[in-house]
């Protein structure tokens, strides 16, 4: 099987779960003997790795092809220059992120989400046509809205089937608000693709209810995690530590984390909280922390690269993911891998694949605080969650997810219009 894959972020250039998931899936597919040409906007390493070749779409600034009006092409009149896939990934966060390690902040970590994202997305899509003419492949696989137009263009040019893979929707990122340009691209991609892969049943439901994608065209392929060779031994410190890691945006629920933290600190005064990540809610969150008198309890680390985050997982007594809308929540698997007990929003996609976690309704701050306190106060609970959670994630692998993707490819190729 040969796959032309359109991705946007990829290690070492990542800003969230998309890059991690994309890499995991590519690794899993390579294990099954799949050949992949991975198209990225730009990437520091161009050397092929086994059956993986990385194609950079945006390295030279001159358009390779003038855009050809195709039937899937969108007409866009106004383009917001501050368009971002995640509300935090622009440079503006670096300024108020005093405690953050400078090297990983802003553009250096995620050069693909600059102020010119909208133009990048469109140029990337233009290049997709010529790339698709050059490459030999059986199916097209596109990850999230940034690559949907590219996927459609490749499909138009080659006639090969396209599967779009939804890691997050604009609804997850921005709730009822959100950017209509992004939503339009999402809709176009979702309706023009032969199949849609959702990272959870939760996301599948959302695609049906909010985007009107018929359930029969959606396949659920859960994210996974592979064994981490650098997995740290648990090193619990003297003071209990409660961890939040993720973009500090409304949808990730940092507000609930802070409110719960205040309730917990009232009961266990020496408790520590860490917020690892940055985002547009950060200034407001800091302000709230000051108002609650929690400054001595909460540490803001800014965005952390994987090795440092791993160390924090290993040190934390409990990891909290209180998202309002969470398509999957890979960080929960990372925490579990380190034996850290996890509290996660009830609807989060990740709770479809693991049982040994505590669940909360995202806005129920009392319940969240009570659960944090329970984990801190009852060692039998902490130990059971830790041991069983870790054992549970050991059973997951990206190879399994890759096999499910292969099944979806096969399904598309068996359809009459794609049969050779």
């Amino acid at each position, binding site marked *: 099987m040969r796959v032309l894959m359109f991705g946007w972020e990829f290690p070492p250039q990542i800003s969230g779960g998309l890059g991690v998931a994309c890499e995991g899936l590519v690794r899993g597919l390579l294990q099954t003997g799949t050949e992949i040409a991975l198209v990225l906007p730009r990437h520091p390493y161009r050397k092929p790795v086994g059956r993986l070749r990385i194609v950079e779409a945006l390295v030279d600034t001159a358009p390779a092809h003038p855009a050809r009006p195709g039937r899937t092409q969108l007409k866009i009149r106004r383009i917001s220059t501050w368009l971002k896939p995640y509300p935090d990934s622009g440079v503006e966060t670096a300024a108020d992120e005093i405690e953050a390690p400078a090297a990983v902040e802003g553009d250096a970590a995620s050069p693909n989400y600059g102020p010119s994202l909208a133009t990048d997305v469109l140029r990337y899509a233009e290049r997709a046509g010529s790339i698709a003419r050059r490459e030999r492949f059986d199916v097209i696989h596109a990850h999230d809205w940034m690559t949907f137009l590219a996927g459609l263009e490749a499909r138009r040019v080659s006639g090969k089937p396209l599967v779009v893979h939804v890691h997050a929707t604009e609804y997850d990122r921005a709730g009822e608000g959100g950017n209509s340009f992004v939503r339009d691209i999402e809709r176009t991609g979702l309706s023009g693709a032969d199949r849609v892969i959702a990272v959870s049943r939760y996301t599948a439901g959302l695609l049906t209810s909010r985007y009107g994608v018929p359930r029969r065209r959606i396949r659920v392929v859960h994210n996974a995690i592979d064994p981490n060779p650098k997995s740290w031994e648990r090193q619990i410190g003297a003071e209990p530590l409660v961890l939040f890691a993720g973009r500090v945006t409304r949808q990730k629920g940092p507000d609930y984390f802070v409110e719960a933290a205040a*309730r917990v600190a*009232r*009961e*266990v005064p020496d408790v520590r909280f860490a917020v690892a990540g940055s985002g547009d809610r950060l200034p407001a969150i800091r302000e709230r922390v000051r108002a609650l008198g929690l400054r001595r309890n909460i540490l803001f680390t800014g965005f952390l690269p994987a090795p440092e985050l791993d160390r924090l997982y290993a040190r934390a007594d409990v990891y909290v993911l209180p998202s309002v809308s969470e398509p999957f929540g890979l960080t929960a698997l990372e925490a579990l891998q380190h034996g850290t007990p996890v509290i996660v929003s009830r609807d989060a996609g990740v709770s479809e694949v693991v049982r040994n976690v*505590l669940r909360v309704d995202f806005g129920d701050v009392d*319940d969240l605080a*009570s659960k944090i*306190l329970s984990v801190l106060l*009852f060692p*039998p609970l902490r130990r059971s969650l830790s041991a069983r959670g870790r054992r549970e994630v050991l059973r997951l692998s990206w190879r399994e997810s890759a096999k499910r993707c292969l099944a979806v490819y096969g399904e598309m190729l068996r359809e009459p219009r794609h049969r050779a």
Partner: protein
Amino acid sequence: MIPICLVFRAHEPYRLRRYNYFDVGRRHDYFDAAAMHRRLARSEQLSYEPATRMLERLLERHPRFAFSLALSGPLLEQLSVLVPSRLTAFRRLVETGRVEALCATSHHCLPWAVSSSELEEQIRIHRQQIHRALGRVPAVFGGEDPSDAGVLGALAESIGLSGMLLDGSGALASGPARRRLYRPPSPAGLPVMVRDDELSDGIERRFSDRRSAQSPLTAEKFDGWISATPGDILCLSMDLETFGLRHPAEGGIFDFFQTWVARALSRPDSHFLTPSEAFEKLSPAESLPRGATVAGTANEMQQDALSTLASLEGRVKAEGGTLCVDDFRRLTGSEHFRAMSLSTGDAARGETGAFDSPYEAYMAFRHAVSDLERRLPRPRPERALSVGPTRA
């Protein structure tokens, strides 16, 4: 034909609320009374009422039909308040002399998990409940864990127990081993009769299961299995809710059962025995092999929950007053223990009750126990992280 000992169990569990850390010291209603009432009302309507009617009819029609009822303490307590007519109906069954009421504990506790004085007291209370409701004093204990036989044996004489029915025994393979009486495990123990899982579950679990090889189960088929079954005694034990609730009436469970009883009793060599009759007529051959017990497989949360609760017993009884003692006893209910089980089998059987997960069940239980402790007059010395919330 092998003699048949039929047992119908009924129990309405105390359901813990999702009692959390911030409830400690603020409210003492650990149990969700509304949910319990709803559950009872549903059981009564769909199952208890029609099943009792069916059993009454069978007793009228067939003079050789006999069975026993294992009614739990919590069920008796709730019925006496909410559906007293059900107790009257049960009493009518018992008054035929062919229905034996079994002995149990007042709060459906795990006999091995409470102190022997607490166990004895709970048995005495249950006995009073049965006597008051049904007019009989029970003598055979309906137990669940093999270790119960030993634990109860010590009390057998003072309480007057003559035997025990065991609902499960990991030590015994299914089949013939389950169809004989066992000697007490120790001199002081009780003779034991073991539930035949295969045939009991054929009705209780698999009656409506269309994927099962036995499907559809007919009276003829079931009767055929039993006549082909060798052994000394066949203990068929099932929840009364099997009729109408677990298997809806429309699926034919009532018809099936009545037809089977009529068919079985049409043969002159068939016998339905009450447990007391069985213990009287049959002599136990060997002693119950030692095997896995529930006590031995308790997980860390279950052990912690039991030991924390047990550590309060002395103070609750000495200084807690009736309300605290009652809450303490309700917390000894085995349903709470089961809800904390991490084994997938238990989760699949819906043993986690109202909770999402065993962890939720454990948290609610532990916070309730913390609150119970705070209600006791003499506070223990302050210990970091072990007390309930402070109030701002």
